[in-house]
C-alpha cells in the first residue's frame, strides 16, 4: 500500500520562478491498484512520480509504503520499493552496457553489491526466458549493448528491469510517449500483462486519455499541483474522453491544455 499524505513541493521558492508544483496532495493506493494519471502540461504529473521516487526531498508531507514512512530516504535507498520507467527511453538503461548486464543490475536492486560476479551464466538463462516473452527478438541479443536498441526495445527492457524484482509500486511516467503508436501499444500491452500477472500496484502517467480510461481500475486527474478528480471501479469503466474534458473544465475553469494529449483524443 502506498500513501501520500499532505505532500507539498515548491520549486525555486522565493524567486520569480517560484512554482508550487505539488500542493497538499493526498493519495492512497491499495495493493493491486492500477491507477492512471492524466493532466495538462506542467500539472505536476512527473513531479508526483519524482516525489515518490525521492529524486529530491519534499518540502513537507509523508510517503508511506505499507505503513512505513520513507520520505526521509534518499533516491537509491528507496529504490527497492519502486520499479520505474521513464518517458525518455535513454533514461532507464545504461547504454554502454550489455542487455544482460543491465538486467543483472536490476536483479540486484535492494541487495548489497559485493564482490560476487556481476552477472552469472545461470541468471543469463533466466533473462533469456524473460526476454523471449516480450517477443522483440531481444533474447538472442543478450550481449548486445543496450545503446544499439530502438526506443521501444529499450522501454520494454526497462519495464522488465523495473519488475523483475517485484516492486511495491510500479511508477510509469509517460513511458510510451516517445514511441510510435504501434510500438507504444505493444509496450502498453506488455505493461498490462506484467502488471496483471504479478498483481503489481501501479501508477501510470499517460498523455493518452483513451489509454488512461482503458487501463487500470482507477484514474486521477492533476491540475496545478492538485488532484482534481479521482474515479475508480465501475464509474471509471464508463468514462469517455468527453466526460474527462468536461470534468476538467468544470473543476479548473479553463480548457484542457496538453499539447500531446489533444492530439490523441
Amino acid at each position, binding site marked *: 500500500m502506498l500513501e501520500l499524505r499532505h505532500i507539498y513541493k515548491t520549486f525555486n521558492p522565493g524567486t520569480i520562478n517560484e512554482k508550487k508544483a505539488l500542493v497538499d496532495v493526498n493519495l492512497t493506493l491499495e495493493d493491486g491498484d492500477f491507477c492512471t494519471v492524466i493532466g495538462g502540461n506542467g500539472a505536476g504529473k512527473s513531479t508526483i512520480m519524482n516525489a515518490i*521516487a525521492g529524486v529530491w526531498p519534499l518540502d513537507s508531507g509523508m510517503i508511506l509504503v505499507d505503513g512505513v514512512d520513507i520520505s526521509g530516504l534518499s*533516491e*537509491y*535507498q528507496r*529504490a*527497492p520499493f*519502486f520499479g*520505474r520507467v521513464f518517458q525518455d527511453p*535513454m*533514461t*532507464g*538503461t*545504461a*547504454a*554502454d*552496457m550489455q542487455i544482460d*548486464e543491465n538486467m*543483472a*543490475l*536490476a536483479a*540486484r*536492486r*535492494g*541487495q548489497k*553489491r*559485493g*564482490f*560476487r*560476479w*556481476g*552477472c552469472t551464466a545461470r541468471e543469463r538463462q533466466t533473462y533469456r526466458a524473460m526476454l523471449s516473452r516480450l517477443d522483440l527478438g531481444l533474447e538472442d541479443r543478450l550481449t548486445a549493448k543496450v545503446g544499439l536498441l530502438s526506443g521501444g526495445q529499450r522501454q520494454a527492457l526497462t519495464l522488465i*528491469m523495473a519488475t523483475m524484482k517485484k516492486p511495491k509500486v510500479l511508477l510509469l511516467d509517460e513511458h510510451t510517449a516517445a514511441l510510435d503508436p504501434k510500438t507504444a501499444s505493444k509496450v502498453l500491452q506488455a505493461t498490462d500483462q506484467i502488471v496483471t500477472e504479478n498483481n503489481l500496484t501501479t501508477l501510470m502517467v499517460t498523455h493518452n486519455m483513451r489509454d488512461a480510461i482503458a487501463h487500470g481500475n482507477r484514474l486521477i486527474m492533476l491540475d496545478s499541483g492538485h488532484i482534481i478528480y479521482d474515479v475508480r471501479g465501475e464509474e471509471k469503466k464508463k468514462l469517455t474522453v468527453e466526460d474527462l474534458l468536461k470534468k476538467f473544465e468544470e473543476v479548473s475553469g479553463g480548457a484542457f491544455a496538453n499539447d500531446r494529449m489533444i492530439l490523441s483524443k
Partner: protein
Amino acid sequence: MAAYFASLNPVALWNAAPGGIAQGLIWGIMALGVYMTFRILNFADMTVDGSFALGGAIAVMLMLKGVNPEIVLVVSFLAGLGAGFITGFLHTMLGIPDILAGILTQISLYSINLNIMGKANQAVPVGQVRVFFTSNIRYLGQTIALTLVVDVILIAIFYWFLGTENGSAIRATGINAHMSRAQGINTNRMKVEALMVGNALVSLSGGILAEYQGFADVKMGQGSIVIGLAAVIIGEVLAQLVAGKRLNFILRLSFTVIGAIVYYMVYVFVLWLKFPADDMKLLTAIVVAIFLAVPYFQEQKTSSFHGLKRRNAKLREAMRKAAEGDDVINDTAAEDERQEQTTETGKEAD
C-alpha cells in the same frame, strides 16, 4: 641538415629503447588509473598530477628510512586511495564540480608533497637501497620483466573488479547515474570508490617510478593527466585497429598499457631526434588533442551540417541528371532505373 642526420646515432636509439619500454610499463599503471576515472567513471580527474607525485614522494622518503621496497609501494598505493577519497568527498559531499574538486586536491597535494620531502626533490643514494625497479642498465631486463608481471596482475585484478557486482555498479554510475540510483545504487559511494582506486593506481605508479629513477620531484606529476590520457587514447585507437569488432574489455585494458609503452617509445624517439625535452609537454598536448579529435571528425564525416551540404550537392546533381534522362518515362519501372542512375552518378561524383 646532413650534419644533423650524421649526428643521430642509431646505437643510442637502440640503447634508449629498453628504458622507454620500462617507463611505458610503469606509466601504464598510471594510465589504468586514468582509465578508471576518465573512461569508467566519466570523471575528468585532475587529482592524478598530485597523487602521482604523492606516490613518488612517499616512496623516496620511506626508502631513505630503509623501509622494505614492497612495503614502500603498498604505502604509496594506500596514500593514493586517500587522495582519491578527498576528491570524491569534495565532489559528492560538498557538491564541488568534478574538475574543480580534482584541482583542489591536486594543489593541496603539492604542499603536502613538499612537506613530505622537506624540499622540492629527494634522491635515493644509488646502490645503498634495495629496490625492485631500477633503471640501472645491468638490471633493466629484470625491471622490465617485473613491471610486466605487475602490469598483467593489475590488469587481471582490474578486469575482475569491474566484473563484480560492485564494479558493475561503478560502470553503471559512470554511464547513467540516474538509472543507477533508480536501481538502488549509491552513486556517490561508487564515485568515491572509483576515484580511490584510480588514484591508488596512479600513486603506485608514481612510487614505482621513484624507485626506478632513484628520485622524486614535487613536479614529477605535472601534466601526468595528459600523459595518462595520451596512453588511454593511443591504446584505444590501436585496439580498434587491431581487434576491431572483437574488442573486449580485457583487450581494452591491455591496450591502455600498450598505449603508454607506445607513448614512451615515441618519446624516446623524439628525444633521439634532438627535440628539446622542454617542448615535450607541448608535443604531448598536441598528440592528445589530435587523437581526441579523430573520433569526432569520423563522426562529422557521416553526420554534420557541413557534410550534409556536400552530400546534398551530390544528390542534387544526381536528381538533375535523372530528371534530364527520364523526361518521357513515367511508370514505376522508371523508378528503379532512376535509383540505379542516382547511385551511378553518386559514384561518379566520388
